[in-house]
């Protein structure tokens, strides 16, 4: 036999990442290019110039695009860098990873029938979900790390950005990005543990992301809907505020990881009870 390339310690993690390695590399490349573009724009064009010659302040709801719940305008260096970490393109990349690897956790294998080969081995359902969750978290962390390092390098090499962004804030924003990914991951894995269709899981990831983003935007733009912002994960994901003021938003981190953990717990419970074949 030829030497095996299969990990004997974590074969299910290996399987999930190996099958999607090209997609993951493309997404990593995409996020690096995108964040580089944001950093280059922020470093070369004064943010105020980007939003009208009359120096008008952008509408308040635009704070949703700068990742701020407070006073960090998109027409500022932290706001513009925050926009790079809250932009729908970046969110779409995160959702692609969460949807794809979330579906791969259980639902894809049930739909394709490959679950019959995996789960007739001495593999517990907990191990299946734990390894697949590990693969998803590893991919999400890699994506956030790529974005964070790109922004951090940009800030390090640009005096204007370095002056505007507190030290260490970029890495805190990256940590918040990981927490957002985990917040979306938990419920998506619960759907995967329950469903027998890959499309259900991908759809759930898109709905959680898009509806959450829209809800936060509407809550910021329309005052009667303001209380609804607490229902959106993007209310707690505010990299613009972190980049503008520094500090660690412990409460937001707690909410995001708490929701993710609850979803994950539900996923484990749902998987224990279900049939694994159609």
């Amino acid at each position, binding site marked *: 036999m030829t030497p095996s*390339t299969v990990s004997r310690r974590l*074969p299910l993690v290996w399987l999930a990442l190996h099958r999607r390695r090209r997609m993951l590399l493309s997404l990593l490349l995409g996020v690096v290019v995108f964040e580089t573009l944001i950093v280059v724009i922020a470093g070369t064009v004064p943010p105020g110039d980007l939003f009208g010659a009359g120096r008008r302040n952008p509408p308040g709801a635009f704070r949703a695009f700068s990742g701020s719940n407070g006073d960090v305008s998109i027409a500022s260096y932290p706001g513009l860098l925050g926009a790079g970490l809250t932009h729908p393109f970046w969110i779409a990349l995160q959702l692609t990873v969460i949807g794809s690897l979330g579906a791969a956790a259980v639902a894809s294998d049930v739909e*394709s029938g490959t679950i019959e080969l995996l789960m007739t081995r001495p593999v517990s359902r907990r191990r299946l979900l734990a390894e697949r969750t590990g693969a998803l978290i590893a991919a999400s962390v890699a994506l956030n790390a790529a974005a964070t390092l790109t922004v951090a390098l940009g800030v390090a090499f640009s005096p204007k950005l370095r002056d505007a962004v507190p030290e260490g804030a970029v890495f805190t924003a990256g940590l918040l990005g990981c927490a957002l990914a985990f917040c979306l991951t938990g419920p998506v894995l619960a759907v995967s543990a329950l469903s027998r269709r890959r499309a259900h899981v991908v759809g759930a990831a898109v709905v959680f992301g898009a509806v959450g983003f829209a809800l936060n935007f509407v809550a910021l733009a329309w005052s009667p809907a303001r209380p609804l912002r607490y229902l959106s994960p993007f209310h707690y994901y505010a990299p613009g505020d972190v980049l503008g003021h520094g500090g660690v938003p412990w409460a937001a981190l707690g909410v995001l990881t708490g929701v993710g953990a609850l979803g994950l717990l539900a996923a484990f419970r749902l998987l224990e009870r279900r049939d694994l074949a159609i």
Partner: protein
Amino acid sequence: MPGNGDPHGPENGTGPVIELRSLTKRYGGTVGIERLDVSVAAGEVFGLLGPNGAGKTTTLRCLVGLLSPSDGQVRVLGLDPVADHRRLAPSIGYLPGELRLYPELTGQQTLDLLAALQGAPVPRQRELCDRLTLSRADLARPVGEYSRGMKQKLGLVQSLQHQPPVVVLDEPSEGLDPLVQETFYELLAEETAAGRTVLLSSHVLPEVQRTCGRVAIVRHGRLVTVRSVAELRQARARRVRLLFADGRGARPLGAAERWSPRWDGSRVELLVPPDEVVPAVRTLLAELPVADLTVEEAGLDEAFLDLYRANDDQLPTDGQPPTDGRPSTDGRPPTEEPRPDTEEGP
């Protein structure tokens, strides 16, 4: 445990290796299988026979723990396939009916992945690949490029490579060419000789007739009967062929008309119940100008079709009551009397 020569695995007892008691599986309002009672002894090759949709695959999926029974009980080596999954799975080799593989992985990666998940040595991998003509070049190619037969060969290797004491095969010879089928039958014989238990489902009757000691016939999710293949064949109608000397062709056969005569020129074929063959032949020879006569034992296909054609409320037409699927204690084909708690055929 697999590979160590212990044919009984976790529960090294003398009871049946596989036992289904009133096994029922419902999908919402649809019944997959209903009150199935089957026992398989150590060292048996047991067949689950029925057309598509009869409930064979559902039964096997309950056996390997992929589905939880809605009602009833499943025991394999004395263990519950769902609750005791991690203890039982090392002792089972399973080939799914519709084998789905990861198309991006090579054949070798697929085998290595499944071996890693099995967590046990795979001493027979190379030997099985060689015997089933899966070359190193084949194994280096992505599975997505495999033909149906090659995928099936890979499926057989993964189900046997860790030498499990219980082998569950769903339609195992699907897609195999005749030469590889022969090798597969040899492998089955070796598994039995080694004291391993094989449960296979099939709708290929000659295959079942060749490989299985006993069969359970299922229809619409319910057990029709459990018999030895020899019993089934013996009990079914004999095929009596007559050639008439006068060349007149079809004619009235009197009382023999009830045995569904099929005419072909001056030849006629009758399906005669076994206990009526001798008087029937005497009568026909006495009354008709018979030039040639042959009596053949019917094959499993006739037995199967007879049982399938029977109405749901009828017993099998061989004059014997259906059994409850329990093997004799030595694992040989059963000769037992029906039990009071028997789940009888419909």
